[in-house]
């Protein structure tokens, strides 16, 4: 991240912030979408996070920590949107019906369905750790710093989240085996 841009935006330079926001917006939306599993909620969370960053930037003391600090605001916005999801959204998700099946290693439709279900059962706390570690490739100590939690807590959340996802995949494998046996 260009710290000069951060410093200029911190001092109220809207053009500098526009450049900064343009640089991070796509990545933020991708992270929010993976945490929330819903593009509308992810867009709202991203919008809220980008506005919060602008508003609170003067309070960031160490501009070198912009990345971690801004991700923390994004995850906070995801929490807020996640609460709305529980309140109003049906538990069903809208997808194009003719979505092509991918040919990579994991992607049987059944695997993806099971992962989706397993992931939605996780709390936002657990989802955020999984996405930061396995999608953004952040080491766990940086995940912990970003989320403002002890490293042990990050490790624990990752462990239980992955255990839940593994159980979801195994449950699918068992049901497939049973179907074949019948």
């Amino acid at each position, binding site marked *: 991240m260009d710290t000069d841009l951060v410093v200029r935006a911190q001092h109220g330079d809207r053009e500098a912030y526009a450049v900064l926001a343009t640089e991070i917006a796509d990545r933020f*939306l991708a992270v929010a979408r993976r945490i929330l599993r819903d593009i509308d909620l992810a867009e709202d969370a991203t919008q809220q996070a980008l506005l919060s960053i602008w*508003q609170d930037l003067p309070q960031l003391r160490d501009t070198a920590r912009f990345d971690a600090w801004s991700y923390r605001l994004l995850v906070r916005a995801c929490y807020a949107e996640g609460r709305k999801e529980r309140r109003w959204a049906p538990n069903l998700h809208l997808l194009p019906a003719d979505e092509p099946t991918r040919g990579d290693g994991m992607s049987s439709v059944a695997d993806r369905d099971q992962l989706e279900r397993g992931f939605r059962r996780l709390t936002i706390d657990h989802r955020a750790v999984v996405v930061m570690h396995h999608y953004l490739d952040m080491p766990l100590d940086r995940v912990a710093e970003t989320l403002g939690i002890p490293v042990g807590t990050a490790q624990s959340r990752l462990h239980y989240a992955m255990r839940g996802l593994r159980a979801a995949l195994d449950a699918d494998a068992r049901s497939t085996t049973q179907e074949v046996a019948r």
Partner: protein
Amino acid sequence: MSTDRDTTRIVRSWLRTDEHESADRVLDAVLDQLDTTPQRRVTWWPVRRFPEMNTTVKLALAAAAVVVAALLGIRFLVPGSQNVGGPAETPTPSATPVAFPQPTALAPGTYFWDVGTASPVRFAFTVPDGWTNRNDIIRKDHGGSGEVALGVWIVTNTYADPCQWRESLLDPPVGPTVEDLATALLDQVGRNASPPTDVAVGGYPATRIELSVPADLDIATCDNGYYRDWLQEGELHSRNPDLDSVDPSNVLFRSGQVNVVYILDVEGARIVVNTWHMPGSSEANLAELEAILSSVSIEP
């Protein structure tokens, strides 16, 4: 059984699918708001000890503080005390205007609601041009006087009074059958209901009930300022208004609104297809809603 390494590989691969998000729309909304969104500046209040004061000085300062507080109180608390005799003040905008979230436009075509954890079935349906999706509810003329909409719910409990809902959650909860839910909805206080009829949705038998919000009901007077008919799977009932932060685009009821609710039993899962329209919804919009409902296919 998967190994840890398998799971990690699968999860990483899954997280990397569909990496085509573009935040252009969000970015436009944010940049539009920058000019009217002030930054929160750091205000430093240095920690300082005042020199020792004698009692007389302390009392004088305390009296001065009381006088200032009283003057401020008169200035800001007494109605009509502001700007007496002067020109009308120009209203100032709120510090942080928040853009009304826009729904996502749906291209005409066939979609399905993925099943999530809620039920063992998949709902496929076809939408024409002009429909949008927000929070997995498809709508046309979102928020307008001619709105029509359709969504799918797994209902776990209902409120006896959708307006005064805070203290009216059914206890014990509504039973598990289609009839249980239909009865509970028909019994709701202050909601005009039609008798149930038997129809079919997606090839499955369904109970159809028409429920409307009284046209003269001011929903702002309801608990927490909104109307609440049921709890869905995973939703929490909270009486505490502080725990509610309602997104205005998500409020699902308005005065005069008519909900046509279809309750289905699909392979043992009770599923509710909830459609609604407004008194001002056009015949064309209603026909499109009906066509979407007719296009539903259910895949166990």
